Each structure stands twice: as C-alpha cells, then as structure tokens.
C-alpha cells in the first residue's frame, strides 16, 4: 500500500500543476482511505474543480471537500499607521 504522505504530495502537485486548478494554497491530508482538502478559493466552481482533480489523482479515496469560498466583504475601517 502506498504511504499516505506520497498520496497527499501527488494530490498537492496535481492541484498546483493541473490547468484546471493551479491552486497552490490547498492543504491536503490523507488518513486511511479518506482525503481531506482545506483552504479558501474565489468561487464555488473552483472549489468543485479542486475536488475533481484531487479525486482523479487519488482514485479510491473518499474526498472530503472542506475548502471554503472566500466571501469578499465590503472594505472595512482603515488602519492609521
């Protein structure tokens, strides 16, 4: 059985290098046959694409997509320096 660290590294590389994603800021953890994705992206479509690419890079694992979509709030108060 492949060590989970290598599986996680392969998924992370796929997310960075796949033309559909190019996401560098997603955290990937593998525990047994479970794959967890964490991070923040700009929209729901990108969130789903990440799960697709991760699933293709690690077939057979159950993907838990815990990535959240960044809610771009109105600019708040300024900071005086």
């Amino acid at each position: 059985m492949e060590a989970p660290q290598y599986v996680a590294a392969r998924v992370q590389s796929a997310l960075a290098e796949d033309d559909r994603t190019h996401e560098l800021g997603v955290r990937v953890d593998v525990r047994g046959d479970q794959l967890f994705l964490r991070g923040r992206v700009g929209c729901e479509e990108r969130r789903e694409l990440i799960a697709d690419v991760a699933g293709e890079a690690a077939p057979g694992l159950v993907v838990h997509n815990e990535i959240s979509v960044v809610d771009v709030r109105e600019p708040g108060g300024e900071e005086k320096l």
Partner: protein
Amino acid sequence: MSQLRIAAVGDVHLGEDLRGRYRSRLSGIEEKADVLLLAGDLTRHGTLEEGEVVAEEFRDLPVPVVAVLGNHDHHSDKPAEIATMLKDAGISVLHDDAVVLDVKGVRLGVVGGKGFGGGFAGKCASEFGEPEIKAFVNHTKRIADRWRVALKELQADRRVVLSHYSPVNDTLAGEPLEIYPFLGSYLLAEAVDSEGADLILHGHAHMGTEKGMTPGGIRVRNVALPVLGRAYGVYCLGEDGEDPDHC
C-alpha cells in the same frame, strides 16, 4: 502635508468565472482611499484572457491604480503582455522600478515588483553549489538590488514598497514553516530597511497574517485577499495631528 489613504489587495486571482464580481466591490473607493495598490497574482493561470479580465475589472477607477505581477501571472510566460494590457487600461505596473504619483499635492512614491523567495535570515538558501540553486538565490539578490537603487533615487514625500512575495516571516504566520523559503526573502526587507520606506505591502501567503514589521521597524502588511477577507485594506499614512478629518 495631507495624510494618504492607501487601499491595497493582492491575490484576487481573477478569471472569466469571476468577471464583474470584484468590480462591484470597488464602487465608492474614492471615498475610502486615494490610491489602489495591487500586490500581484491578479490572474490564476497568467493567460492573456485572464489579463483582459483584470484590465477590465480595474480600468477607469476614480483613484490611480498601481500593480505588480505575481508568480501566477508568470505561469503562461506572458507577463510582459499582461503588463502591457494593464498599462493600456491606465494601470501603472512596476517591474523593480518606481512610480511617483501626485495625490492631494503629496508625492507618493511606490517602488516594487514581483519579489521572489529564498527564505529568511538564518534559515535561507545561499548562492552556493549547483547552478540551479545559485540562479534561484541570485534572482532574489538582483531584485533586492534594483529595489535598493529605486528607493535611493526616489524623490517623494511618502514611500511605499509594493511586492508579491513577502519580505518578512511575521506575515507568514499560519503558513507551513516548510514552505517559507518559497514565500519570500529577507533580502527584500534588508534592501528596503537600508533606504527607508513608510510601508511595505505584499500578497502571496494566503494562509498568512496581515500585520508584521521589518527588522528596521517598517510596517509590513500582507494584503492577500484570503487574509484580508474584504475587498481591500486601507492604510493611512501621516503624522499624528495632520489632517485629522481624513484618517
């Protein structure tokens, strides 16, 4: 001298799927800020199509816009073309050089560029060994040298450095320690500390922290969109007691 309100954001990673969404958050920016600085990673893949979305999103704003590119904007090997598109849309794009804007009668000098990695003092790569390692470190050194020269020659009342990569590790807190050398370099902070500036802005570290400081005491702000969680941060430069109505 009037106080200046600097709006800044990085890592907006625009693409066709986000067209128009960011622009809607920029309405009324002239009431909140005097200038908008973009800290790189404006696109996701660095394609011309994404560059065009960025140009449209930040075109014709009522405040001047200054940008640097990030590593994502280089991915399709079209950074010069993207920079030209942005310039055609009225956006100043820095590539290890400077621009001076007249804002409310104050000369605001902005120096910067993409920056690069290498790590932080005591835990960094050196220009030693294989040519690939030497090239990596030398790239950052050359950038830092150009920033030092640009700052030395800068004639301005206020001085802001705009980067994509981080000059300090304070603002990386939250990122895995193992990737710090790919997130920035102390050589950038050293160059700025040697010539002085009022503020350094950067992006790149999505899981980092907003506030930090160089060893020389210059305030550093990580304005990556996922860190800010808001359309842009606003930082007010000025002495205490100056123009209190504005900040």
